[in-house]
């Protein structure tokens, strides 16, 4: 090295002398020739220096022109990429020039070290200015050409069912639950992506990326790129109406609000993952595809915060109180998460996204567990729903309505529920074994029931045992039977008219038909046996007396049982006819056998009786005067 420098010095000194000699205007031809020879000689002695000089000159020239370009734009406040089609190209060419200048400088083993250093320094300086500029241009281009969308047109799942939304046991009506939606199958979002950034500028962004990566300014590029895109994704998420709410506030939300937040979430998750994340991933690939690991790193950094917000919402919902209505939403959420799991696994297939994959799998389990706890608690709730007073008129209890509507809504989720339930440990928790064991022993179909059917039967058994308890509250045992008839009949109707029919099978329906008919018979026995037996009484009383007592007893029943209520007209009629058959028949027979009773002692004819029986169970008390032959 020292040698080199010495040679350089000698060369420089010699050149200096030669220059000074040339400067002399009075040189003769001989002298000129001698100097030229000297020059030749000098070049022969130091050939590399000579060549380097030429290279230096050339390199410096190229650098100068590139510097000019860079400095010219440094003073210009408007964007290069907004200034016509040729400008960016020229600028990138200048950057390219600087790079190749640096390459030449680095590759040559030049002798003039100070010159090389000086040129390198200048090149680095120019490069820094250019890179800083490219960073700004990058920011400008991406922000300017961000595309926004109206996500309304996008189809998304919607088998959301509103079960008894905010209603309590006391007020739930059939209609509220019955609006189960059109179709269970989610309208699959076709795996399509959109252009989050105008595709026209993608080559520009890519060119900037290439220039910055080639110049070793990769980190600066990444920071800027990630920063802008992260914010863009955050905005897309807000455009889906998803609002960031603290877990604390979510836990305090009333059901109605939470329910609508969940619906927003369901839609947001699906669109965000399927559409925005997929598109973002594609965008990253378009820009950074050549730098593979960088692309997936950037994508993970860009998207992690937003996806985590969505995940946290899910965790919060799974954590909140397990009200029965929430089950449907939890199942919706679970289903959405299961749906997007493969997408997430694919989007974050690299190691950088491992965390997100793990979190999403964790969330799916939280939601599943929460759904199961909700279902179990619902069953407990059915069992423990205690009444102090008997239900008026022996009608259909709102618990019955609620539970039946609830479980028929659950059939909408039969696929997912079967999946969850088949993996659940079977514990001895199935409710009210008395009812279960009694019927399952000879129920051939129960062994082939789906897990959901098992669970729903268990819920129904819980309901039945609760209703049995409730029926005991009636002072009048007959009304207790009517209550059971009404409620079990309602259950059977509900099963017959819904998907539950397939789950429970005809066998179940037959059995429960039998059940309420048995209760109906019990009713007849309890109410009418003793009255009919008055007529049959072989005791001392004479026919007149019997007739009077019979009519009085009938009037008593009439007064009370016209207030009782069987809402289903068919059922009411059946029970009236059956009562009529027994009672009127017995009465007619009695009158036929006791012709000695004078007409004036016969308060009601058999036909009167038949008509009056039609007033029973209509739920509005009638006075005898009104009804009689009215």
């Amino acid at each position, binding site marked *: 090295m020292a040698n080199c420098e010495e040679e350089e010095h000698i060369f420089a000194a010699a050149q200096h002398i030669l220059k000074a000699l040339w400067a002399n205007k009075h040189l003769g031809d001989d002298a000129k020739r001698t100097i030229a020879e000297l020059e030749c000689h000098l070049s022969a002695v130091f050939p590399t220096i000579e060549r380097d000089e030429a290279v230096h000159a050339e390199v410096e020239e190229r650098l100068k022109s590139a510097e000019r370009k860079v400095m010219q734009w440094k003073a210009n406040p408007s964007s290069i990429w907004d200034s016509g089609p040729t400008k960016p190209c020229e600028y990138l060419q200048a950057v390219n020039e600087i790079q190749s200048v640096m390459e030449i400088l680095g590759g040559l083993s030049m002798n003039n070290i100070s010159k090389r250093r000086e040129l390198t320094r200048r090149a680095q300086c120019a490069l*820094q200015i250019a890179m800083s500029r490219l960073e700004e241009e990058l920011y400008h281009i991406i922000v300017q050409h961000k595309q926004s969308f109206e996500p309304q047109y996008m189809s998304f799942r919607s088998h959301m069912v509103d079960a008894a939304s905010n209603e309590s046991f006391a007020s739930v009506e059939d209609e509220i639950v019955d609006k189960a939606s059109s179709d269970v199958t989610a309208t699959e979002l076709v795996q399509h992506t959109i252009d989050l950034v105008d595709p026209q500028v993608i080559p520009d962004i890519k060119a900037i990326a290439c220039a910055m990566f080639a110049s070793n300014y990769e980190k600066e590029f990444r920071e800027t790129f990630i920063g802008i895109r992260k914010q863009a994704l955050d905005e897309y998420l807000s455009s889906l109406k998803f609002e960031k709410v603290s877990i*604390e506030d979510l836990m305090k939300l009333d059901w109605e609000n939470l329910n609508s937040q969940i619906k927003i979430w369901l839609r947001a998750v699906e669109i965000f993952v399927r559409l925005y994340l997929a598109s973002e991933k594609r965008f990253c690939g378009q820009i950074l595809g050549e730098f593979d690991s960088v692309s997936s790193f950037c994508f993970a950094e860009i998207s992690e915060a937003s996806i985590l917000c969505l995940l946290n919402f899910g965790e919060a919902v799974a954590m909140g109180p397990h009200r029965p209505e929430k089950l449907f939403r939890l199942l919706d959420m679970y289903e959405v998460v299961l749906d997007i799991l493969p997408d997430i696994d694919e989007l974050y297939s690299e190691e950088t996204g491992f965390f997100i994959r793990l*979190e999403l799998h964790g969330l799916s389990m939280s939601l599943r567990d929460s759904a199961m706890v909700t279902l179990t608690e619902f069953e407990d709730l059915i069992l423990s729903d205690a009444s102090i007073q008997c239900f008026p008129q022996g009608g259909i209890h709102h618990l019955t309505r609620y539970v039946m509507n609830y479980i028929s809504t659950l059939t909408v989720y039969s696929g997912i529920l079967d999946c969850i339930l088949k993996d659940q440990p079977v514990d001895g928790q199935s409710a009210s074994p008395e009812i279960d064991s009694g019927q399952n022993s000879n129920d051939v179909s129960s062994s082939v029931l789906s897990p959901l059917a098992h669970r729903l039967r268990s819920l129904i058994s819980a309901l039945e045992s609760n209703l049995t308890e409730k029926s005991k509250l009636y002072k009048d045992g007959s009304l207790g039977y009517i209550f059971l008839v009404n409620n079990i009949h309602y259950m059977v109707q509900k099963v017959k008219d819904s998907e539950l029919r397939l789950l429970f099978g005809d066998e179940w329906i037959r059995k429960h038909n039998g059940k309420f008919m048995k209760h109906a018979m019990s009713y007849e026995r309890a109410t009418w046996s003793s009255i009919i037996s008055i007529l049959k009484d072989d005791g001392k009383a004479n026919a007149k007396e019997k007739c009077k007592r019979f009519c009085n007893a009938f009037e008593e029943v009439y007064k009370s049982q016209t207030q009782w209520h069987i809402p289903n007209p068919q059922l009411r009629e059946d029970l009236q006819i059956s009562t009529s058959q027994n009672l009127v028949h017995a009465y007619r027979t009695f009158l036929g056998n006791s012709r000695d009773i004078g007409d004036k002692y016969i308060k009601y004819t058999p036909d009167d009786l038949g008509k009056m029986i039609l007033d029973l169970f209509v739920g509005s008390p009638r006075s005898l005067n009104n009804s009689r032959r009215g």
Partner: protein
Amino acid sequence: MKATETQPSFLGRISIRRNQVMSMEGNHEQELQDLDLFQKHVSDRFAALLSSPEDLPHEPLLSISWLRKLMDVFLCCEAEFKAVLITGRDPTQISKPPLDRLIPEFLERAVKVLDICNAVSSGVDSVRQCQKFAEIAVSALETKPMGDGQVKRARKALTSLLSAITSDDRDNNHFKSTERAWSFGRRVNQGGFRKDKPAGSFRSLSMVVAKNWSAAKQIQSMFSNLVAPRGAESTGLASPVYVMSVVMVFVMWALVAAIPCQERSGLSTHFQIPRQLTWAQSMIGLLEKIGEEWKKKEKKGSAGLLEEVQRMEKLGQSLIEFADGFHFPGEAEKLEDAATQVAELADICMRMEEGLVPLQQQIREVFHRVVRSRREVVELLENAGAVSQPME
């Protein structure tokens, strides 16, 4: 101290004993023993955090590795607490006064912990961004020979670094940065292409929890209804609930003080621990040390007390000075000084690279653990029939 170190024997003992004595009524003695042990373990663990021995110079107070230890301590205490409170517990015991009030309050605190975890975790993200800027500066300043280009490059990165560190919590919120970004775009037509460019296109701390959410307020409300049990209560289950609550609030408070977090003004005044609690002495010591630091820093508006970030800030300022005074080829002495500082900055970057992601994972673990424990306590309460979730 690993999260598993002291647990097995203690937890195993509790569960075995509970199984043995479940049927017996008078296990008060053993309850007291459990409580004593629990308090002792809490005390020991925090003593280890306070001492920060000289032979471990890489673990100063509020450094990344210290915070990671703090997270471990939290997880250990939490596991023991759960054993004391839940394992083999007859549910009716925790549904009686004063626990019927204390447990729900505890559960509310647990929910606040979750939000704080999320906020802090996103704060770790912004520290990671600082690391990235610092790395740019380091690699630029490590170039030999050092030219103006590299010095300018480093200066730019350091400016971004400092603006990330010093910008106030409130400035970091989502809305302002959005506005800034878009006004930049809009002004292009007026020729102001570069004027509004956010400093170093700093990746802002996006609002992760919610609008108007404040870490300081959460800490305050976690603490506001926290009263040390007295008299007969102090020997019952009220005590471990109190101990764990104090641990919870302290750990969250320290995290919020250390790591950038949404809205922290007045943090130092929100939390005190009664001096007479013997098991809390180390915690009180830590609280005072950190509290003083916080008061010093709060006025300046800073990203937090994280040791690495504070050193980064100092180094950043000093290296910016160096960059501003740099004339090629530079004075040997100054170059040497700068090289030392760059090496130090590189060292911090390395420690961040090693520690930040694991710290973030630990914070997430705390999150999940608290969720799980909360669920178990709620289930226990439900079994006791204390928490009714009426359908109405």
